């Protein structure tokens, strides 16, 4: 059995700095006025996560806001390093944490495609090979030599999505990005992700749209307060999520 993703006892803590004293001035004031003194608090965003994802599997991450989904995704993307435990991801990872991140408003669509792919470690030649497909899929051929600051939000997202899915990743991480764009764009994106899945790409999907999770994922994982609350068949996990959500609502 080949594991694409292996998390062993992964915990992640952040240090919250109240009154962060990044200026000497603030530090000096803090010496005299305790109210302004820097106060540190450790916040555990993830605690002891064990998760293994098979090659080619599609796993949905669900959970209420602040449950650690995005933190987990960032650990998979190597953006954060776990405080404890070990995270192993095999192959090329394409994170879709925000569409079109790194786009320079004053550069054209074409220039941004080359800049963006190189952020993910592609060489110029690699990009030459996929360039036509990226442009075609985005449907922006007419506007590809226009600075992206003149793009609409939808066009911007289309180009960003198109770059990300053409990176030929082994593992694709998708964070809520499908919430942007109109219904047609969303459908097209989901189709494309489905296509990558059929071709054997491992996918980790964070979404609040339950039908998407149910339709796309082989498995779902419910995070609550940084711990895995339930894991398994998407339908069962979603049912568990409903329980958790209504219990929380009742408390409020």
């Amino acid at each position: 059995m080949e594991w694409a993703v292996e998390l062993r006892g992964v915990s992640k803590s952040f240090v919250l700095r109240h009154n962060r004293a990044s200026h000497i001035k603030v530090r000096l004031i803090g010496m005299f006025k305790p109210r302004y003194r820097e106060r540190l608090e450790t916040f555990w965003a993830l605690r002891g996560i064990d998760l293994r994802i098979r090659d080619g599997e599609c796993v949905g991450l669900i959970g209420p806001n602040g449950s650690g989904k995005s933190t987990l995704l960032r650990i998979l993307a190597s953006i954060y390093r776990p405080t404890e435990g070990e995270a192993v991801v095999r192959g090329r990872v394409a994170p879709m944490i925000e569409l079109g991140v790194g786009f320079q408003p004053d550069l054209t669509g074409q220039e941004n495609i080359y800049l963006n792919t190189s952020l993910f470690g592609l060489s110029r030649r690699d990009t030459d090979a996929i360039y036509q497909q990226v442009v075609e899929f985005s449907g922006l051929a007419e506007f590809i030599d226009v600075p992206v600051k003149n793009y609409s939000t939808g066009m911007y997202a289309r180009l960003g999505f198109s770059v990300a899915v053409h990176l030929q990743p082994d593992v694709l991480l998708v964070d809520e990005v499908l919430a942007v764009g109109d219904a047609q764009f969303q459908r097209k994106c989901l189709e494309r992700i489905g296509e990558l899945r059929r071709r054997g790409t491992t996918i980790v999907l964070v979404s609040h749209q339950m039908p998407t999770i149910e339709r796309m994922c082989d498995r779902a994982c419910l995070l609550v307060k940084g711990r895995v609350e339930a894991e398994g068949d998407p339908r069962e996990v979603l049912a568990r999520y409903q329980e958790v959500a209504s219990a929380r609502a009742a408390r409020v």
Partner: protein
Amino acid sequence: MEPSAAHLLRYGTLVRNLVFKDLKLKYRDSVLGVVWSLLNPFLLLVVYTVAFKIVLRVQTENYPYFLLAALLPWTFFSSSLNASTQSITGNANLIRKVYFPRETLPIATVLFTLSQLILALVVFLPALVLVSGVPVHATALLFVPLLLLHVLFTLGLAFILSTCTVFSRDVAHLTEVGLVLSFWLTPIVYPASMAPPKLQALFQVSPLAAFAIAYQDVLFWGRVPPSSLLAVLLGWTAAALLGGYAIFRRFSPGFAEEV
């Protein structure tokens, strides 16, 4: 995902693209384009020549050529360091959302500034030689390895400053002030021999003075810098680069949380 050497090489395209991005952004929509990049060093050359040669009557012959030798490299050094404080903090959004070797950012900053230096050198060096009729010494060839050393030294400091700014924004301001101060404590606009003995003692150990004097030696005086000077240069460059990179590697995994 440890950033090994091979791993970094894969991101060579990124460094290249980052440098070209800055160049494009600088010159796009600007009619005069590269002229702006030359105007600043040109003004510096004129102002210091007027102040030191004409007003204060520094005795050095061919003063503009003497000035250029150390002034243009200094401009590269100081712009690199000032820009490096923003290398990480200015790309916070990128760092929070994409993984890539963070080293690429300060490297691209320094290489972009280097491109500006090369542009200025290519224009002003031949122009001054033609106008003033100073002889071109064979030692001028040593300029290239000297510049290479200077780039590595600058890169080492850029690693340190870009890291420090993440944790304290004061570093950017301190860098600016520090650079102005060191400019006058370095024999760039005046020859080292004119300085009082105490300052000359500083020149013996300061890497900034060592670079300035070495540039003047190979370009202006036409002599090979003494070995004691080269030892200072090599020592400081190795220390800055190794120390700077170690510091950067130690703290860069946490950048995404700190910026």
